[in-house]
């Protein structure tokens, strides 16, 4: 067999192998398509159903859902999930502001002062989210 024939022979691939190679390529695509879905569902299943990440909390703030923010913050703390610190402080602020107005209006100065100190501490830790704390102040006006 001369070199030319050998080369031609070499270039001629077994059709079965060609078919198997095609199947492998298809399976690679199927695998690549399945992996993200599997990771997404696995990650979701492993998470506390009530816990919230910064993205959800940010969405709640866009919708103006402060009760949802407070709820998310509690569930995050019970579930031991790493929670977005700024949002936790904002949730603390909103809850304290809500109660401060009640205690202040009903003349319970001890508890009102307690809530006030929670608000001050929370405001110091919320970073750029203070804009939402200002919003809370406008929502819950307190006559001094």
């Amino acid at each position, binding site marked *: 067999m001369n070199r030319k024939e050998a080369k031609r022979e070499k270039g001629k691939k077994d059709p079965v192998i060609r078919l198997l190679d095609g199947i*492998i390529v298809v399976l690679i695509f199927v*695998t690549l398509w*399945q992996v993200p879905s*599997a990771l997404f569902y696995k990650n979701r299943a492993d998470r*506390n159903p009530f816990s919230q990440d910064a993205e959800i909390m940010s969405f709640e703030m866009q919708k103006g859902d402060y*009760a949802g923010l407070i709820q998310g913050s509690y569930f995050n703390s019970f579930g031991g999930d790493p929670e977005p610190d700024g949002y936790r402080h904002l949730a603390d602020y909103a809850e304290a502001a*809500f109660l401060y107005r009640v205690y202040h209006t009903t003349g319970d100065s001890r508890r009102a002062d307690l809530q006030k100190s929670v608000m001050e501490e929370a405001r110091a830790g919320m970073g750029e989210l203070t804009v939402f704390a200002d919003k809370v102040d406008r929502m819950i006006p307190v006559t001094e």
Partner: protein
Amino acid sequence: MKCEYCGNNLGIEDEICPYCGRENTHAKEKRAVLKGYRARFEQTRAESKKRSKSAARIGRLVVIGLMLLLIGALRYSIRVNSDIDTRQRKIEDRIAKEVGQNSQQIADRVREMEKNREYMALSYYMLHYRLRGAEGYDEYFRVFTAAIHYRSICNAIWGILDGFDGYEEKTARDWCDEAAIYISDWNSYVDGTFWGDVPDSPMHVGEHGAFLADIKQETRDIVRVYFHLTQEQADSMWTMDRDALGAMLYEGLGKTEEGTDE
């Protein structure tokens, strides 16, 4: 090698002398040996080619098999983790395991929350660990119900304050009606008149009783402040009809803290 007839040089593969045209007898034996080598070489080559082809096919089949197994595992994982019932069961199992392992810690934390009057925290803690109806928490049933009512009323007020529609296009009036449901149900489900609770029931004595009185008082204060109710209105709200209470709360929204209309 030379031709025995004409003496010219010959190659080992020359069967006939190209100069005189006679047979090259010297190379006959050598050619036979060479032919044998060639035949063996071709045979080995063909066998090797066949083996290599089989190995390539087997290798690819193994890869395909492994990939199918991987895809199967991924599909199974997706099916298990995306199925709501399975997921819920997994979550419940995990929580039940956590509660079982930390039962004392959880019980202590509930007691602490009750003692410290952490109403909102208790309502979410109880929900997080599915304690309502859990073994060992029968005496806390009214306490937990009170915390749920408290939280629901507070959340309704938040809905009014922040304008959130609860993804249901709820209006301020809807939130007032929702708060009214929990307030008007308080005596039935928290105080236990619906269930015929006796005053010395374990759910109402000791710390539980003190907690229930305090949470009711705080709920009353919250409703009074945020809906601008008078003392009399706040005292009577527990026994009011839901619709009338909803209307009163909504009307209160339009008032200032001094009781005048805004």
